[in-house]
């Protein structure tokens, strides 16, 4: 990549600058700590739940057991609930870790969707300029003025029906033609309908900032000599965008991907709080926090139900935000 384009970190910066963006990032101790926390949190969410006793995910008679209680599950199996149990006697630690998996996957996928749309719109607007640019940017302005939360709610309530209808039809069609593998695939997708809708809707909502930033960066880049050179050589617009602009945009994209994930995870938790997000028996940090918020009441406060997912989500999002800020500073993205 660097063989045909200037250093991606430094459009317009003096060539004598001794430190590249990555080197500056490595010197940032807070950013490295955040990266460590993130890796640890992702590893814990993805690898630890399968290694734990299966009994932790089954209901037991000891509902709302405080942290540290010995619990014997319904189907047999005894374990110590380090962080207490929930309303159905399931282990809170297990649920928080497996819920984190859902939250992180939704966050990453939706951020990827938003990144795709945002980059496409931003690059098109910035590179083509003129009427295309002003139309796309007015569109972004109008969408910014829309109450975002309402928009997501409308989209979700509009898409839920058609998707399940479509899945049913696809399943019937596959069955009629005897395509067993296809039918199995479709069957596999049924429990994830809500998650798919969430990923799509949140991605469709959160691309606005990305589009603005990418457009700004493209406006700077397209005046540079290597783009002019590519034009003089007669390369097509598409090729210039993909081969020359995109490689120089990836630090911007990485930065805003890091900053979009926490926003999306927060949105998902908000929707789950309203009962429109991830549904039982699957759980995300949002659904767990909803249960936790309901468990704080004047009579008995089961604080562990709120504090455990709260700390897990707070730490992960804090680390993502720190890392995103550090990336933005290191690569000087505005």
């Amino acid at each position, binding site marked *: 990549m660097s063989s045909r384009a200037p250093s991606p970190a430094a459009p317009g910066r003096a060539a004598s600058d001794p430190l590249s963006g990555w080197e500056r990032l490595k010197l940032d101790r807070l950013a490295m700590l955040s990266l460590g926390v993130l890796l640890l949190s992702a590893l814990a969410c993805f690898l630890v739940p399968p290694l734990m006793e299966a009994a932790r995910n089954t209901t037991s008679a000891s509902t709302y057991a405080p942290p540290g209680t010995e619990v014997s599950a319904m189907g047999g199996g005894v374990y110590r609930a380090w962080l207490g149990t929930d309303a159905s006697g399931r282990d809170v630690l297990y649920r928080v870790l497996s819920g984190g998996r859902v939250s992180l996957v939704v966050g990453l996928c939706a951020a990827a969707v938003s990144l795709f749309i945002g980059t496409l719109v931003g690059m098109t607007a910035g590179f083509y300029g003129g009427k295309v640019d002003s139309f796309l940017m007015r569109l972004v*302005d*109008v969408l910014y*003025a*829309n*109450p975002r*939360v*309402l928009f997501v*709610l*409308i989209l979700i*309530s*509009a898409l839920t*029906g*058609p998707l399940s209808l479509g899945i049913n039809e696809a399943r019937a069609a596959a069955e009629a033609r005897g395509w067993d593998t296809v039918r199995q695939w479709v069957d596999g997708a049924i429990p994830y309908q809500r998650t798919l809708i969430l990923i799509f809707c949140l991605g469709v909502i959160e691309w606005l900032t990305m589009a603005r930033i990418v457009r700004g960066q493209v406006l700077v880049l397209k005046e540079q000599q290597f783009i002019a050179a590519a034009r003089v050589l007669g390369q097509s617009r598409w090729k210039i965008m993909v081969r020359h602009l995109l490689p120089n945009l990836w630090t911007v994209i990485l930065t805003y991907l890091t900053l979009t994930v*926490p926003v999306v995870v*927060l949105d998902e*938790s*908000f929707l789950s*709080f*309203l009962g429109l997000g991830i549904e039982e028996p699957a759980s995300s940090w*949002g659904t767990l*926090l*909803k249960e*936790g*918020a309901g468990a*704080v009441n*004047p009579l008995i*406060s089961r*604080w562990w139900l*709120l504090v455990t997912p*709260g700390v897990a*989500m*707070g730490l992960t*999002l*804090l680390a*993502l*935000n*720190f890392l995103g*800020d550090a990336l933005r500073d290191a690569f000087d993205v505005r």
Partner: protein
Amino acid sequence: MARFLVSRFLSLLAVLGVVLTLTFVLFRVAPGGPFSFERDLTEAQVLAKEVQYKLDGPLYRQVGRWWQDALRGDFRESMKSRNFTVAEILGQSLPVSFALGGVAFVLAASGGIAVGALAAARQNRWPDRLAMTGALLAISLPTFVTGPLLVLSLALGLSWFPVGGWTSWKHVVLPAICLAIPYGAYVARLMRNSMVEVLGADFIRTARAKGLPERQVIFKHALKVAVLPVVSYLGPLAAGLLTGSVVVESIFGIPGAGQHFVNSILNKDGFLLMGAVAVYCVLLVALNFLVDVIYCVLDRRIKMYE
């Protein structure tokens, strides 16, 4: 300046028109229309219902008739809560949300600006680090975590404030703080970054070289310029806060307008939804315009000083 303001005003009006029309179209196009909750309606009955609610005919005429009514100030009847007009429902709940949002706005704006300015004045030292870490944490936590935690500590633990309800001034404190925390944190970050930039500017160096005391440099010279980006964020902030946060209102049991925003969508109560979106958008547009006016005034004064 007048020309700039007029063109801003017109483009904001256009945004208002587009957003409301878009919402109406989305609500009408979405499958499972407003009458899908009622059982086994024949086609004739559906048509009769549509005529009753003025939702018959082609889409553009439906939109047109809604706009005609809305511009006359008639937001029609709620489709779900019979016998209540949208104006009545919103008229009961909006004042509550405005009171809560107003207090939260003052808290978020003043607190955020103060914390941001102080952090910038102690740039890269521990007060700065502490404040910015705190702000980031506040942004990373949803209100349905901070809310119950506030209740747990200040209401249940220390019994300073009631747990929920909406009768005296004491009931306003906790929800307002809870609502203000993430927005205040955002303002603080914005303020800190802009202040850091301003403190590196030439006119600040001149002020310091003149031998002005640091307090005067920061509060009299730097603050006025640094606050500008924050001012432009205050418009959308106020619109969001004033129309109420669904989550905070449901945690503290406050009869505000937030619930109507969500319920109108879940119940497919299109006219209530349109009323709620109209209030939000009019507020947003009006406040954005106000911000533009303030910006013009502030900006001119700064140019005079510089």
